[in-house]
């Protein structure tokens, strides 16, 4: 038997307050690549990766990494949340945030040592943020904050990365830097999944993409998936049926 896929979602259905928002997603990624998760606003892109990471509960289905549930491989999977989800007034410096990426290796009672500090500094350096190590995170620009987040993910030394809109509201220089680092990760044999909303850049940046609109419309090599027909099916508001049905399921009654 061949090796299990790096990531496999099987019939994943997710509901918020009883209303399904993501229906029956079947998706497998076999090998390392830059994987874009693309779709319109409210399509459930973030929900999809939160479901994969066990942040939101599944109504149906399961998610495996290397053929195992997440609990057996924690630490090998990294996550960079949306920038808005964090309290940037929190009293930490950039280097402290990056060091948090190493905590899962330290375990109980062990303190951060010189090795971790040097490594964290190196991670900051890799995203071009070496000079900002001691800056409070609230005093960084949006792009710099995103790069610090990326450095934290690097410090974790994961093998599969999930990034939620890492390029939204980010200056051009930061975009370039982030994209370069993500490409390097792919070249090192890591799987990088990125929630992304900009179709124009998607075609040139990702090796493979998944088109999502409350369900998985299509997934595969970027050139094949980003066809006119698939895009029409993703962006034409075809989810009306799922929308209406979701409301009926939430209320526990039939649709008209």
């Amino acid at each position: 038997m061949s090796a299990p896929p790096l990531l496999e979602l099987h019939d994943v259905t997710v509901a918020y307050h009883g209303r399904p928002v993501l229906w029956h997603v079947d998706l497998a990624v076999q090998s390392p690549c830059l994987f874009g998760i693309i779709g319109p606003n409210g399509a459930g892109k973030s929900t999809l990766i939160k479901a994969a990471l066990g942040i939101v509960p599944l109504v149906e289905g399961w998610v495996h990494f290397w053929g195992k549930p997440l609990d057996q491989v924690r630490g090998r999977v990294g996550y960079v949340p949306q920038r808005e989800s964090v309290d940037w007034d929190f009293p930490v410096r950039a280097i402290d945030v990056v060091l948090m990426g190493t905590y899962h290796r330290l375990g109980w009672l062990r303190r951060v040592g010189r090795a971790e500090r040097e490594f964290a500094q190196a991670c900051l350096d890799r995203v071009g943020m070496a000079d900002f190590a001691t800056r409070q995170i609230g005093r960084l620009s949006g792009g710099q904050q995103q790069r610090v987040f990326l450095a934290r993910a690097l410090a974790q030394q994961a093998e599969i990365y999930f990034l939620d809109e890492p390029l939204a509201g980010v200056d051009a220089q930061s975009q370039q830097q982030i994209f370069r680092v993500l490409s390097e990760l792919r070249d090192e044999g890591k799987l990088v999944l990125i929630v992304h909303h900009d179709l124009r850049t998607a075609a040139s940046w990702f090796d493979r993409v998944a088109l999502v609109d409350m369900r998985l419309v299509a997934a595969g090599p970027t050139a094949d998936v980003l066809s006119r027909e698939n895009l029409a099916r993703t962006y034409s508001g075809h989810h009306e049926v799922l929308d209406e049905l979701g409301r009926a399921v939430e209320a526990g009654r039939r649709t008209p």
Partner: protein
Amino acid sequence: MMGIDGAVAFLTGWGGMHGWAMATAAVVSAAAAVVGSLLVVRRMSLIGDAISHAVLPGIVVGVLLGGRPGGPLATAGAVVAALVTVWLAELLRSKGRLSEDAAAGVVFTTLFAAGVALLSAAASRVDADPGCVLYGMLELVPFDVVELAGVEIPRAFLTGVVVLVSLLVALWSTWRWQVATAFDTDAAAVVGIPARAMTVGLLCATAVVTVASFEAVGAVIVVAMLVVPAATAELLATTLVGLMLMATGLAVTAAGGGYLVAWQLETNAAGMIAAVLGVGYGVAILVSREGILARVSSMLRLRWRVVCEDVLAAAWRAEETGQAVPGTSRRGVALVAAWWLERRGRLLPGLVLSPQGRLEAEMVVRSHRLWETWLGRHVGLPLDHLHPPAEWIEHYLGAEMRQRLEQEMATLADPHGSAIPPER
């Protein structure tokens, strides 16, 4: 008819003083509930909490200047303290980078502590006891009386009535402005409604109500009276007037009930009133429109419908293939459902469909097969993944949606090749 004299006789006669104490608690609670309703719908409960504590130094200063604890001077001091609280909290939030809750927490605890210290230091000179500040002295209210038209009336009751009436008059005269401000402050201000004045007025009213209830229930329990009746009513009411009336009713009921229970158990009346309010909130969570009972019952009804429809569909499929009905329809809940469906004329003995049952079963199977077809086409699930989702969704598709799916699919058979029954 009991008449005024009868009522006075009841209030003064029964046990001598309980009537007056209960009446005082009721009036004070009603005033707190009215103000609290606006605070709760404006999501300002925390600031109400803060004000009710922070007025203490204002009251003490008022008393030190020669006023009485519930008198005009103390009230003025309390209003000043309330405005200082809100202003300081806003200052900390905007300049000190504190969140709203932390800012209010810093300000009101500091002011309350100052008030307690001031009170302790001046205890020998003023007629107030720090213990009463925390949980009031409702039981002693009837002993401090003033004479009005020949009748001895407790001062606290009189204060409460004056506050309640002025509050209602103020509210009545500014009602539409209050509602507009509470609902959408910015939009209200843009169309020329004095939104800021409405907000400041609400804060002052909170301070005044707190002072009026201080003697009776104390600084801690008054928070319950501000917040809990309104929070309870919010679960049950759909209009602001309804919410206010319900909150007031709850507050008065809890005042009377709590007092009686406390008297029976020989415990602190104010504390028991707050406890009764808390119990009322618990009951409201259970029985409200989207409460626990409603949700559980709707879930059970849904489960029951699903079980019944599954039994019917299984019988229909057995007819279609000419095989026996599977054993799952002859076990557990399904057995009860089958008995029920027989009673309702959907099934004949031996799990055979009646004409009416056949019709309903057909629509379930139709829903199932249409959904398999839709999923196969739009979600790209493999053939062997289609059945479980359809087993789930078949219970949610209505006639209109089925027609729509059928028109879009334009096929007579599902992905497994089974015929899709027509709509009837």
